[in-house]
Every structure is written in C-alpha cells, then in structure tokens.
C-alpha cells in the first residue's frame, strides 16, 4: 500500500472517530499532547485502525510505543511490508 493511501485512510478514520480537524493531522502531531487523545481513546485507536484497514494486527502491543502520527503511518507501512496482520 502506498504511503499516501495509508495516510489518507488513517487521517479519515481519526478525523471521523475522534472528531479531529484534518488540518491538525500532520506527521509530527503528538497523539496525546497535540491531538488530545487519552488512554481511553488509545484503546479505541487500535480498533479504529483495524477497522479502517480491514485487518487484525498480529501484535497489538507494538502500537503502545507510537508517539506521533508519523509513527503511526510508519507503523502501518511496516505492517504491510512485513504482512504482520491477518485480513478480516
């Protein structure tokens, strides 16, 4: 999957689920501090991402280290590169 496509899907999913302004969705936006998501949102973030890409992560715990939106884009790119997911 192309990087732009990943970014578009993530941005659309986050904007819809967490009612975020699309303009705030930039690579260096910190998920907690800049986007304002808290621990409860982070739990749902996993499900939102899985639903958006229609896959199930093999290891959800790897999401815990993600700090910025750029990290999240890269994480999903890696997921596709290593096929470390199960299609729903």
């Amino acid at each position: 999957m192309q990087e732009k496509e990943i970014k578009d899907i993530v941005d659309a999913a986050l904007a819809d689920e967490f009612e975020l302004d699309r303009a705030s969705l930039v690579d260096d936006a910190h998920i907690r501090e800049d986007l304002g998501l808290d621990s409860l949102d982070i739990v749902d973030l996993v499900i939102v991402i899985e639903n958006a890409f229609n896959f199930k992560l093999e290891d959800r715990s790897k999401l815990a280290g993600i700090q910025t939106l750029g990290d999240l884009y890269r994480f999903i790119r890696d997921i596709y590169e290593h096929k470390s997911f199960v299609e729903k």
Partner: protein
Amino acid sequence: MRGRRVVITGMGALSPYGEGASVMMRGLRDGVCALRSLQEHGIDGLHCGVAGIVPRLDAKRVPRESRRTMSPMSLHACFAVREALFQAGLDPDAPLPGAGVAMGSTIGSPEVLQEFFSAYLRDKSVDGMRGTVFFKVMSHTVAANVALAFGCARRVLAPAAACASGLMAVGLGYEAVASGREDLMICGGADEFHLLTAATFERLGAASLEQEPRLASRPFDTARQGLVCSEGAGALVLESLERAGARGAEILAEIKGFAMLSTPANIAHPSAEAIETCMREALDDALLRPQDIGYVNAHATATEWGDIAEGRAVAGLFGDAVPVSSLKGHMGHAMAASGALELISCIEMLRTSVYIPTYGLETPDARCGALRHPQASFAVTGKAILKNSFALGGSNCSLVLDHCCQ
C-alpha cells in the same frame, strides 16, 4: 426530615413531547397524547406496537470527551440537566465542583449491550470491544456521565430501583442536602427505549398490546391493558434554602418530605399496605396530615395490579377527598425518568394551580378504590402535592412537594 430545608431551583425535561419542561407541560395541559406507533419490529412473540419516543437530538451538543462514554440515556440526561442548571441560574458550561449527582436508570444501556453481545456471540471474540463500552452499561452510567459532563465533584449516587429510580434519586438528593452533607444536588432519572424493556413487561403480562396510541395507556380505567414504555430524562436542581436565598435564585418549590420502603412479600406484585405506609411516612416526614394534601400524582402505570394496589392505598389514606391523576396516559411510562418528569409536572401544577387529569380515563375501575378522578383540568390552591413512584423489585417512594413559604 428534620434538618435543613431543601428547595428546587431548576428543572429540565426531555420527554416524548420533545425537549424542554415547557414543551412537556404544554402537551400535558393541552391533553395531547405523546405516544406513537412503533415501526414494525418483526420480533417473534413481541406484540408491543406503541411507545413514547423522544425526538432525535444532535448528540454533538455534548463535547466528544464526555459523549464518548454515553449511551442515549446519558445523552438524554445531559440535555435535561443543562436546561435545569440554566433555569437555576447556574452556568452549565462551567464546572460545578460543589455539586453532587443523584440520577438513576433502570439498567445500563440495553442498546449498547445488544451491540456488544451481538458481536461477541457472532465472532466468539472481544477483539472489537471498545474501551468505552463498560461506561455505557455500568449501573451508574447516567449519574457518572452527568458528573463528568458538568464537573460535579461531590457525591454521585445512582439508585438502582427500576421504575422508582428517578424519584428515589430526588429523595436521596433531598436527604443529602437536608442532612447538611451536601449543598447542591443534581437529581433525576433517565432511560432509553429498547424492545427488551417492552418485552420484559409483555412477558410479565403487564404491557399494553393496544396498537392505537391514544388508547394504549389508560391508568385506572376498566379498559386498561397495561403500561406503554417510553423514554426520556428529567433533572432537578436541589439546594438548601439558605444557599438558594444567598445567591438570589428563584425557588420553584420545596421538598417537604420523602419516604422509601420495600415490599418484601413479592418481587413483582405491589402491596397496597406498603404503599399506604410509604405515603404516610412521607407525610410524617413533612410534618403534614392527609388533609394538607391537595393532589396525589400517582405512579399508576395502567397495569392491572399496580393501579389497584395504589388506588386502594390512596383511598385508604385520603378517602375520596383528594384528586388523583396519573400522567402515564399522556406520555407512557418513561421508566427511571418517569418519577423525575412527573415531579417536574407537579412543580408546574403547584406553581400554576392548574392540575392535569388522567389521559384516557373514562370509566374508573372500582377495584382501584373510591378515588376522586377529575375528568378535566382542575384547580387546587394552598395545599401540598404527594408524588408516588414504585418499581418491580418492591421499591416504593413517596415525596411531598409544596410552595416554599419563607
């Protein structure tokens, strides 16, 4: 209750009539039935075809941070609380750290439970379960979400007493303020309609199967078939008389007394004796006598046994001297919201001296005792109101309301 005097300074309602206490009162006074036909549900064995449904409101009026853990019942409550705070002269957009909350619902959100269990049973998995589910189905979901949304940092009470939850919550708030434990309490009840609720009453033989909305809920009438489920939220702001006076708040009414007790004999059948005792204890608490009451707002849901038990209890205590009516013919039984919505209606009746008869009551059932059932709007002046709410599980609540004479 011996203690501080407790007054009501704000009220808000979301009812099958729409949003706002004034909208509800206009519908009640105009004798409009707020019930409507349900869309075909196709559930085998379920025959209920009428309900009282609130209009769909824009949920985004509640900020996402608060809304994410709310099911429809908590949203209903927030709309009502906001109106109540505004009327009380309190800023609904500013945190209220000095306020407590007492709000009940019959259960956590049945809609969210259905959504969760549908996926859980289908997929045999909890992978798709969101972190917010629990907060929508927990027993104190309404009270906790209201406290969060309005920044209330004092005690949070969530009486779980089915259909009596709303009035019980007001009673608990009254006791908290009267005892001096709290100065300000936001009280009431909320619920959301779900076919599971209707099915529960239908299985118990307590639901109306009438398909014509205007004939479906007929408390005290010989032709009554049972109750009609509805939904909504009622919220009231309670505070000490001293606090309300000090901040110059308009006082809408005073809570003079409250009582609650159980009927341990049968979990599903009410007891006239217990109800009469409950009303008598509420009067004792208010230091009033039966002749001081000018109107009884009955719980009367139009069930066979409930109306008989309450009617006999009212007749036993008041004879046929005091007018009685139920508002469930107009707007059905809003479950945990019913006690709060009907109490709000009582406050308006007290303030305007215009009282509302039972909608749909044409031929009173003599088995409900020799009661005085007005057939049209009527006037009462200079007397207090007694409001009842009862519930499956044997919970009985009575509250006495009056003008506040300082």
